[in-house]
């Protein structure tokens, strides 16, 4: 059997950060009590009619333009008909064969389309209700219903789970830089579905694809796709056929479960929404959208590389997580651009401690962070000690110099008689290593340096220690 390769496409939904909903004047909801952000339109009351939000269209155009899409001079809304309690009208207003933007490309992955639609409401399972014996109830909260959504669909051109994750990271940064969405996966303002199929390497046939629904973190997307590729590989290699179905990935068990199979596939009966007129996208609308697009992450990465001397990976790590890039630039504001490489390296240390959080939301102010990097640069604090300072900053905040003073983390140097004493003790404690260094074996010096570092809890400057060892052994 020939080797198989994965063909992955992504469908991303992003909630727009407008003030009001897509088709009515209700303000968007951020945790308000249930059903307090509704009106006849978003409750689907009889006789109510939708009117499209101009800013949502503006945001969709910004997204389309930022992704290099072609903007349709005329696009229309369709009705996607199906019954579900979170869908008040019995149809979702969406775009179908005449979307507002199509084509485009981001970092080598071509886009199929970008379109506007409305979000569904929230359905909360409450279990058995006291009132109706033995019956499971769910409750609908229409606050979220009608929130503007932009759906971005890629061509099936992502090559691996890791590639999908990396590309999504860039897309998220791009949307974030546009200021059109909160792009928060945990809160659901960014959601991704993946289409996965396998085919023999080198062929262009498309295998039967399955759809993985609503994965709510980049990690789960990567793991979910990997699990699905493995599942399909096993089916194919054991001579079976992959069935077209929609799957849910459970990150706690790592298992995939079927939501619905092809037999019960819905027939959405799309037809043009007669309550809305076509969107006529004028040149003025396109220019206004273009004017609101700032620096995009890919351009930012290039600038970090060319102007600040970061290497390609470092530049992308910061630019593709916009909040890191923003923090980075704020820190440079206090240190000066000449410290860019050091600051970038130390942001890596910070990320190791705060994970996916936005550094702006942590205890570490850009000023404190910059001050710490400068202290390392001037050798006032060793790298190891600075990491300890960073731990304290993350946990409690504060000023790095004050933390160093309070905890005695300042560098030990030649001026401190202590360091020479500690070096002498290390030499005396390990005569065999000392002998080998004396005999010219440079590798043996590591044991001595290590001993000094243990003794000083990392506060000593490594180069200084090495120099002192050579000095003392030469006499």
């Amino acid at each position, binding site marked *: 059997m020939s080797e198989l390769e994965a063909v992955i496409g992504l469908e991303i939904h992003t909630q727009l950060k407008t003030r009001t909903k897509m088709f009515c004047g209700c303000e968007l909801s951020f945790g308000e009590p249930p059903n307090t952000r509704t009106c006849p339109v978003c*409750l689907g009351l009889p006789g109510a009619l939708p009117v499209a939000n101009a800013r949502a269209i503006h945001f969709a155009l910004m997204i389309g333009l930022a992704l290099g899409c072609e903007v349709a001079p005329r696009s229309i809304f369709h009705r996607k008909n199906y019954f579900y309690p979170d869908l008040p009208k019995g149809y979702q207003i969406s775009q179908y064969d005449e979307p507002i933007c199509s084509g485009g490309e981001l970092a080598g992955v071509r886009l199929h389309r970008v379109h506007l639609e409305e979000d569904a409401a929230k359905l909360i399972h409450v279990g058995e209700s006291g009132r109706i014996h033995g*019956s499971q109830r769910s409750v609908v909260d229409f606050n979220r219903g009608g929130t503007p959504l932009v759906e971005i669909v890629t061509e099936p051109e992502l090559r691996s789970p890791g590639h999908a994750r990396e590309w999504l990271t860039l897309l998220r940064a791009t949307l974030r830089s546009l200021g059109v969405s909160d792009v928060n996966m945990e809160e659901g303002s960014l959601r991704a579905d993946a289409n996965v199929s396998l085919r023999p390497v080198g062929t262009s046939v498309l295998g039967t694809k399955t759809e993985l629904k609503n994965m709510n973190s980049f990690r789960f997307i990567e793991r979910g796709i990997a699990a699905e590729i493995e599942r399909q590989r096993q089916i194919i290699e054991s001579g079976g056929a992959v069935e077209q179905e929609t799957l849910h990935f459970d990150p706690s068990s790592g298992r995939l479960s079927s939501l619905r199979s092809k037999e019960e596939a819905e027939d959405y009966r799309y037809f043009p929404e007669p309550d809305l007129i076509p969107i006529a996208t004028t040149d003025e609308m396109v220019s206004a959208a273009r004017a609101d697009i700032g620096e995009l992450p890919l351009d930012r990465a290039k600038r970090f590389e060319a102007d600040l001397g970061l290497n390609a990976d470092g530049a992308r790590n910061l630019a593709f997580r916009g909040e890191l890039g923003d923090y980075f630039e704020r820190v440079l504001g206090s240190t000066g651009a000449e410290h860019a490489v050091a600051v970038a390296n130390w942001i890596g240390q910070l990320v190791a401690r705060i994970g996916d959080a936005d550094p702006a939301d942590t205890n570490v102010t850009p000023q404190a962070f910059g001050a710490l990097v400068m202290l390392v640069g001037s050798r006032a604090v060793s790298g190891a000690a600075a990491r300890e300072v960073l731990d304290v900053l993350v946990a409690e905040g504060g000023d790095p110099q004050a933390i160093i003073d309070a905890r005695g983390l300042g560098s030990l140097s030649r001026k401190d008689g202590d360091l020479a004493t500690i070096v002498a003790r290390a030499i005396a404690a390990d005569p065999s290593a000392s002998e080998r260094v004396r005999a010219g074996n440079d590798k043996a010096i590591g044991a001595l340096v290590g001993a000094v570092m243990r003794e000083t809890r990392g506060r000593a400057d490594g180069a200084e220690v090495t120099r002192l060892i050579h000095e003392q052994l030469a006499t």
Partner: protein
Amino acid sequence: MIDRDTVLHVARLARLELSEEEVARLTIELGAVLEHIETISRLDLEGVPPTSHVIDVTGALRADEPEPCLPRERALESAPEVLDDGFAVPSPQA
């Protein structure tokens, strides 16, 4: 032209329960109406664009400005079943 299975399939799409008698009657009635409607299948419509909106309207967009929402009691006042300040339904998962 339209058979019993089609009627049942369409009824399911439309979330309509039909009695045996209704299924039988609708199979005949829909067949008869569709036969009249079939006349348009004989027309030459090559190159004729479809009309969704008879009258040209443009620029009917809404400024992104909030309007008052319904008080929750009003939103819920006609609901057949209310639970936890929301509209209660039989669970889809059940």
